[in-house]
């Protein structure tokens, strides 16, 4: 009796272990509600980036300047401040105005355009992962330059939001990727570019 019970226990354990192994490698399928929920998170994060365009509007991008100056004081990577001061802030004469700065406007235009691209990608769910990767990079830069001047997690959270949206294809609900993804996947066998692009949706 005890021998047969022990055998049964071993069989149950083996079956459970096999189930665990199977569950570990099986792909995780998101429900429709979870996908919609994540799509709404994506739109909100896109809106977060979108709103940041308005305090540093072209052509002067003046609102950005004090933050670049602040980064030269608070960046925690050695040499980062030196590089900023001797490249993009070279020639600047005042900490409050962009007078004399020759490379500030090209830098600011690049930042503004990148944030606009992030906003469009995330708000409209078009090449969402490209937007999320760009958002992660931009947020990492903010984390390096400004996190020691404020609550650390302010920028850490934005980095993680970008990373989370890189991992999950959130544009395939409530987004243009819903239309793009199947087309790119169909073309992926014939075209290498389509294969690369299909990873970004």
């Amino acid at each position, binding site marked *: 009796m005890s021998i047969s019970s022990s055998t049964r226990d071993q069989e149950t354990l083996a079956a459970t272990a096999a189930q665990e192994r199977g569950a570990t490698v099986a792909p995780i399928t998101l429900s429709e509600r979870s996908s919609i929920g994540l799509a709404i998170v994506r739109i*909100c994060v896109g809106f977060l980036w979108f709103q940041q*365009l308005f305090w540093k*509007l072209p052509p002067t991008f003046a609102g950005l300047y004090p933050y670049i100056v602040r980064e030269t004081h608070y960046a925690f990577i050695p040499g980062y401040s030196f590089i900023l001061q001797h490249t993009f802030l070279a020639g600047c004469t005042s900490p409050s105005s962009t007078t004399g700065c020759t490379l500030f406007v090209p830098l600011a235009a690049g930042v503004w355009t990148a944030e606009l691209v992030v906003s469009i990608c995330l708000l409209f*769910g078009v090449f969402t992962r490209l937007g999320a990767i760009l958002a992660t990079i931009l947020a990492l830069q903010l984390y390096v330059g400004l996190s020691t001047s404020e609550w650390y997690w302010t920028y850490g959270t934005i980095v993680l939001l970008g990373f989370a949206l890189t991992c999950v294809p959130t544009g395939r609900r*409530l*987004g*243009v990727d*819903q239309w793009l993804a199947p087309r790119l996947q169909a073309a992926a066998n014939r075209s290498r570019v389509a294969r690369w692009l299909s990873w970004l949706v």
Partner: protein
Amino acid sequence: MNNVLRGLFSGLSASVIVGMLYFVDYGPGNGLHGVARWFGIDNKDTGRLIGFLLLIVLGALFGLVFGLLQGKREITISRAIATGLALGVAWWVIFAFVIAIVIGHMSLTQLNLGSFLYPFMLCLVYGLLLGTIYFQSTVRRAIRARRPS
């Protein structure tokens, strides 16, 4: 649910999501004053609430139009997105531009990149949401109808 009612439901859902966005940052809901300003009925005390209600009513209205435009045709994701975005542009042109100038007394000199981009993008987001929610609900209904009882 017929197409017009589905359009109404999609329009309401899309406008609630867009209305929610106004509370994400710079708020709560200060941007809704801008919606009330289109009709010249903004005020410090109730402007936000008026803006939110207008957003919902306009969202429902454009949802109805979407349903009417769709008619009995079979919906595709490309047409749903294109129609939704076109209605989003129409929303911006009619309300955030023409009505805002005629009724809200907005001056053309006030129009700059910032004052254009903010409402325009939100109108487009509304349009995209309208199209995708409509498509999603149509497909889900079709799948449910095909399932054996």
